[in-house]
């Protein structure tokens, strides 16, 4: 395949957002900032169409991977950029395009009237472009480029309302934590280039599969990539930036921190899966991290009071589930959950946005709401659909992916099975708790009755309706996703020009990318039972024992603090950061300025002092000079005489 044969839709994927951004920045922003969203919404539509076209193409067997542009070269070292359109890439791309476009539409109404409207849309769409680039990258360097760009967009959007100190701190925390993760990615990238001499996925897969001995750095590369994924996809121990990132406007939280950016980490692992799977110890590590984080975050989600933070911890938990699926070798399941999670989590976030909008706040706390179901019927209905999908109740979308993960976990047994079961119960618990506390029956501790929430206008509700329907019906996608992942991955030809003019087409024989598990009545029963258990517990804790949420906090402040500080992990992190900052201060101000520079300046002062002492010899007196002359002459004569 040559550059001329690349389908138009692939070019449009990039051309549309770039054109929209340039138009928006150079034309609309200076002249009519409140219209900045128009070229951008148009671009969203184009991108959605293009992604779906590419997905259809891949389903029909037309995946491709080719280099288009030599970015840098020196001697025999070269980095090329190109496009890789294959199964997992287009599957996730379609989800990102659809969900992203709907959130763009929502944001047009949500952010109306904000003085930074233009800036928001430009950065938001820049993020969108970066995500597209990340998903279609065909080598690790290109992926890293877009990965960093996504991080910058996140920084600018979390810190969007920068006059708030909490937003500034959250943005910095998000960026720096991601940077710590990127330490791993960059080092892994360098090691990949050193070990394999190339960074292209297909070539690396080929080299890994066909080498007789494991390359020296492969375990290290795997660990570092997992570390990077933990930062981006908010896994323990680097998850703590995500709850604080809720400081950003709700569309940001919905798109970036639910559906797309945070899934980039999981996507990196999917792309690097042949490398990781080649080291026997790594997949269990991934699964263990995923399982632990899933349970850890689910417990915390059940104890939080801010609506967006509950959803944030829920996202962390579900990302943990995706990692768990991946670690158990179920790549298709991970992709499926990634896609379906995108739909229902985005819907949930936008519903929370509506709730906040009703009380003119960026976010709402359970203390501020209560019993708003009757006033916000549409929002409530969407929320219910999405919640059922999250909890994994058949026939809603989330069931299919949850069920598959539970199946794999139970099959593995042991701690993973226990983790899977716990997460099922807790997911249902926290989402139904959130639903009941917000939409049903105001309790005395809540101010819900006092406020008069109004349902948001149709322009707010329409996108959410579509997202919730997507979340509900996503189960229909199951077989398509399976085909895409299995077929679309293994069928990708990569054309490699070889010196001498002969082309070689590589098809990497990839490790078994498992198909989705067959339907099992046992797992169905167990899963539904656990979800029902969780939902029932939530009903009890919110409707029947209405003040339970407030009572345990009041009666046991120590326990409340434990949950507030994420079992103490936040305190550990704060101490670490303070330690590093203190060390930097020591190095910069004490060691460098006071000690080292002081020593050098001291040498200057010492030289001055020595000069002062020496100049004491010449007091300017004639008699002294005469003495010296006499003494000198006598010495010379004596020396001459001795000779």
């Amino acid at each position, binding site marked *: 395949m040559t550059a001329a044969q690349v389908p138009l839709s692939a070019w449009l994927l990039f051309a549309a957002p770039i054109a929209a951004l340039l138009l928006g920045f150079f034309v609309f922003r200076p002249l009519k900032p409140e219209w900045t969203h128009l070229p951008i919404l148009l671009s969203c539509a184009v991108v959605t169409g293009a992604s779906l076209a590419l997905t259809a193409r891949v389903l029909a067997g037309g995946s491709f991977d080719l280099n288009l542009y*030599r*970015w*840098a*070269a*020196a*001697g*025999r*070292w070269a980095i090329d950029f190109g496009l890789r359109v294959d199964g997992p890439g287009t599957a996730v791309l379609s989800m990102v395009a659809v969900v992203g476009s709907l959130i763009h539409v929502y944001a047009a109404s949500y952010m109306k009237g904000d003085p930074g409207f233009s800036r928001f849309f430009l950065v938001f769409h820049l993020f969108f472009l970066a995500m597209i680039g990340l998903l279609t990258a065909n080598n690790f*360097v290109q992926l*890293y*480029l*877009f990965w*960093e*760009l996504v991080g*910058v967009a996140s*920084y600018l959007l979390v*810190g969007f309302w*920068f*006059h708030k*100190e909490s937003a*500034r701190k959250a*943005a*910095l925390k998000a*960026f*720096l934590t991601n*940077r*710590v993760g*990127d*330490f791993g990615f*960059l*080092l892994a990238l*360098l*090691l990949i*280039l*050193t070990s394999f001499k190339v960074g292209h996925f297909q070539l690396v897969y080929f080299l890994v599969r066909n080498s007789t001995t494991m390359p020296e*750095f492969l375990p*290290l590369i795997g660990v570092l990539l997992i570390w990077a994924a933990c930062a981006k996809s908010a896994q323990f121990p680097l998850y703590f930036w995500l709850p604080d990132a809720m400081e950003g406007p709700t569309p940001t939280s919905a798109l970036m921190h639910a559906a797309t950016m945070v899934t980039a980490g999981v996507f990196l692992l999917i792309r690097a899966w042949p490398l990781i799977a080649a080291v026997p110890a790594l997949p269990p590590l991934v699964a263990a991290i995923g399982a632990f984080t899933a349970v850890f975050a689910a417990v915390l989600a059940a104890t939080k009071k801010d609506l967006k933070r509950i959803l944030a911890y829920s996202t962390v938990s579900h990302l943990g589930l995706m990692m768990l699926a991946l670690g158990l070798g179920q790549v298709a399941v991970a992709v499926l959950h990634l896609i379906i999670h995108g739909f229902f989590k985005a819907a949930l976030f936008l519903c929370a946005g509506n709730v906040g909008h009703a009380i003119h706040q960026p976010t709402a706390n359970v203390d501020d709401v209560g019993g708003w179901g009757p006033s916000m019927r549409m929002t409530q209905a969407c929320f219910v659909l999405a919640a059922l999908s999250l909890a994994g109740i058949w026939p809603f979308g989330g069931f299919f992916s949850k069920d598959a993960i539970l199946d794999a976990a139970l099959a593995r047994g042991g701690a993973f099975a226990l983790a899977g079961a716990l997460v099922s119960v807790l997911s249902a618990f926290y989402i139904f708790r959130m639903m009941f506390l917000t939409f049903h029956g105001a309790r005395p501790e809540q101010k819900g009755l006092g406020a008069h929430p109004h349902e948001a206008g149709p322009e707010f509700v329409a996108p959410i309706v579509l997202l919730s329907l997507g979340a509900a019906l996503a189960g229909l996608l199951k077989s398509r996703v399976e085909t895409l992942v299995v077929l679309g991955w293994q069928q990708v030809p990569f054309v490699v020009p070889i010196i001498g003019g002969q082309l070689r087409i590589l098809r990497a024989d990839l490790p078994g990318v498992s198909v989705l598990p067959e339907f099992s009545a046992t797992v169905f029963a167990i899963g539904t039972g656990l979800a029902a258990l969780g939902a029932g517990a939530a009903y009890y804790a919110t409707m029947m024992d209405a003040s339970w949420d407030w009572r345990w906090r009041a009666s046991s402040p120590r326990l409340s603090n434990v949950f507030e500080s994420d079992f103490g992990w936040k305190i550990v992190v704060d101490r670490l950061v303070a330690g*590093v*900052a203190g*060390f*930097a*201060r*020591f*190095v*910069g*101000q004490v060691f*460098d300025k006071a000690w*080292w*520079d002081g020593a*050098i*300046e001291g040498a*200057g002062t010492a030289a001055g002092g020595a000069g002062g002492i020496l100049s004491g010899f010449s007091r300017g007196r004639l008699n002294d000079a005469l003495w010296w002359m006499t003494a000198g002459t006598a010495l010379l004569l004596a020396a001459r005489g001795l000779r």
Partner: protein
Amino acid sequence: MSALTALWAVPLAGAVACALAGRAARWWALISGAAFLALAAAAVRLSWQAGAVLAVTDALPGAFGVSYKLAADGFSLSLVALTAFLNLVCVAASWELEVSAGYWACFCFLASALSGVFLARDLFVFYVFWEATLIPMFFIIGLWGSDNRRHAAVKFFLFTFAGSIFMLLALIAIVVAHQRATGVWTWDLDALRGTDLGAAAPWAFLGLLVGFGVKIPMVPLHTWLPDAHTEAPAAGSVMLAGVMLKMGLYGLIRVALPLLPSVAESWLPILGTLAGINAVYGALCAMAQTDLKRLIAYSSIAHLGFCLLGVFSGTSQGLTGAALQMVNHGITTGALFLMVGFLYERAHKRGVADFGELAARAPRLAFFFGLATFASIGLPGLNGFVGEFMCLSGAAESPILFVGVPFFALLGVVGVTLAAAYALPAYQTVFWAPAGPGSASPRVGDLRPRESAILWTLSGLMLWIGLAPRGWLALLEPSLRGLVK
């Protein structure tokens, strides 16, 4: 080709014209700066197309084999072009300043001397131009700087001069050793290659390392830099950080490594560690600074640490990346110093805590400053990433491991990670955080058209080099091939 002489003679003529011109000095500076840039661009174009080394050699009837020899390959010309470009940027940025004719003359003279350093191929001529750069910089810092300028100027001069003495001793030792071996006195760089100094070789290399290391600056010889940068006027900082720091690296690549390759080879562990220390130490110190200029000065130390990692790696991507990063750093740090200069000009304050809310008052400044900050911390897509990545890629090929990881690459990546930690909090405090009661922000207005134009040019270059570095690399790579192991 006597055109090469023009490359340093034109700005020198401009300096003389400025000194004599009095009130109209800045126009002469502009004219000579533009002419210089045009000449440099033409030379780059010639070199790119012809792929050749342009040279001029005149034997001086001098003692001890000193000759007047200049040559220009892609690497030298890239730095000459950088000098010319930043010189013009400095003239444009200082346009409205109330300064005497001497200011403009100093800048022209500085440009001339720098250009001579990068073109010289005779070690004596090289040394003369090297020392000549100190004089105008001393005056620029000492006469037109801020409050503590006298001390900073003297410190700068004495420190770099002392380093240069070691370099001179080393050069003399090499020339004498060559004469003892072949009976010919020569200071010609190409002829001196492969001189065998025997037991004196490590000492000579140490002398060269000290001389160049002070300029780079290499930790622990770096303490002149923060003071010099803080006290220099904005345009002075731009030239200092943008070009003068590159003299040290240039000297390493052009003089030290080709003349004494075996010593460099055996000292690789130490050299690589020093380079890594630069990257990490510079970043740590930068995190602790409260003065914007000092912060950027320490970040320069960190950036040049990356360049050093690339140089000492001995790989083609490392060396070419380091050469490109020298140009990149000039552009990015030049832009940052310029903007801090604009702030200082308006508010007469430089502290991070002295501002606040500037994103609302000066949105264009906020945009450019943000772009330059991200370029500085190595965001892919902007120029800083290309050089850093190539240098680190070179460093990763070193066989020296530490807990199973290539040690120098590890240090470099730690430096990259820490970069965000010093740059972004400062940016946030200045532009996003609310202004305190004593803040100087009310005095800060947005960019004027002249300033915007300069920053658009610099930003455009940042994006161009970041997205399409291949052409620039093609210019640099042939010159560095000889150093690749």
